[in-house]
């Protein structure tokens, strides 16, 4: 069964029980994506499927026939960082760094969702325009926990990129 990971075609023919997360880490050797809780609660495993962020621990690899998956390795590398990666470095958007790949993948998709006008729970008028205030960003990033509590620097990094994109 074919799928594309960071632009490279791959074939999955393993045990159907394999989660996308385990497949990425174990079989593709893409260990940037992290396993925190393995139950959809922490966001460390966030990757993009066809551009949308999801928890890779709660989906099976076998369910992604033909899908395009982007992991943190696909967003950028140390020589050629994605603007969000660079901003996380500039703003100290991490301490231990365990949650960071998930935070950055999530932030990337979050900015795209906001650009499409998707509301969140804290959007005052859900039929109106979306303004990414700090409260909005915090709510939209609430699926990514950080045990080190780097939240405020994470928001700073995201705000910088958001403003640069305007």
């Amino acid at each position, binding site marked *: 069964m074919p799928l594309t990971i960071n632009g490279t075609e791959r074939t999955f023919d393993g*045990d*159907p*029980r394999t*989660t996308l997360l385990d497949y990425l880490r174990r079989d593709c050797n893409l260990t940037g994506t992290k396993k925190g809780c*393995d*139950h*959809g609660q922490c*966001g460390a495993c*966030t990757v993009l499927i066809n551009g*949308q*962020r*999801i*928890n890779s621990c*709660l*989906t*099976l690899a*076998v*369910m992604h*026939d033909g899908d395009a998956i982007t992991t943190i390795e696909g967003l950028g590398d140390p020589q050629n960082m994605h603007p969000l990666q660079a901003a996380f470095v500039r703003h100290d958007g991490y301490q231990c760094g365990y949650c960071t790949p998930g935070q950055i993948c*999530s932030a990337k*998709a*979050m900015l795209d*969702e906001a650009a*499409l*006008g*998707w*509301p*969140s*729970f804290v*959007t005052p008028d*859900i*039929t109106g325009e979306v303004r990414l205030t700090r409260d909005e960003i*915090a*709510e*939209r990033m*609430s*699926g990514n926990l950080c045990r080190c509590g780097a939240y405020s620097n994470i928001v700073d990094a995201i705000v910088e990129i958001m403003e640069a994109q305007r």
Partner: protein
Amino acid sequence: MRPFLYSRADGLDHAVQLAREGARPIAGGTNLLDLMKLQIEAPERLVDINRLPLGGIEPDGEGVRIGALVSNSACAADERIRRDYPVLSRAILAGATFQLRNKATTAGNLCQRTRCYYFYNIDTPCNKRRPGSGCSAIGGFNRIHAILGTSDACIATYPGDMAVALAALNAQVEITTAQGRKRHVPVRGFHRLPGDTPEKDNVLEPGDMITAVALPPPAGGRQIYRKVRERSSYAFALVSIAAVVRMEGGKIAAASLAFGGLAHKPWHDPRIDELLAGAMPSDALADKAADLLLEGAQGYGDNDFKIPLARRALKAVLREATGDAA
């Protein structure tokens, strides 16, 4: 996870045929896989329904038909839903996270299972997980448990948010049966009370496949979803209220209220809607509505607080829905 046979359905007939043979549908997988990892669920066969043509939000007469596979994100962000059924957008956005909602589907959300701690712990007795083994929540820790419609066998709640809004909106669940017949069940009658068979969450029969949820014509009015939870984001409801209230000349012209976190199903009591219709809003009226809601309420110790909490939440929602402040 226990081994299972995986098949991907290439059409609704195929999916129904596999389901008839005992295969369990998997949609977003965000609830089923979670439970399979913990071996609370151990289906021998899975049928992946994600490639079926059950996406899309379409006009349906004066109403709207939401396909079973529409993601919670897409539903909440849909322009018509935001404009004409804001309580539904709000309820969906009050649940889980963007990542989860991108995968979670309309049908999977309706069928999500309880969050009772003992249901999740395979080492403790639980009638829902293992019929006849007993209920650990009665006499145990039961902060998140039900106060309405409970039984001696189970006091679990239905944990979802979306279905509470669907109950207030009086939506219909569209089902294709194992025999390939179509039937419609109102969301208000889709989930059941535990009774002697808490292992059954809802009225789906083996092999039944949800194909869509149909919303009636827009009700207008003020629409509110209030969720009371332990943290301000990313937690299940202790109590939630979906309210659709239309005012006319200072009076309540029509009201439809549904409650989450109180029972094994989204709770809808038609007497409350009848009491409110045509009435002048007041504190006393809100208290009367709360009296009706809580008439048969029973606490189990740790969840006693839900009884006064539900009353307060109901009064606050009615104030907001009927007050002048927009």
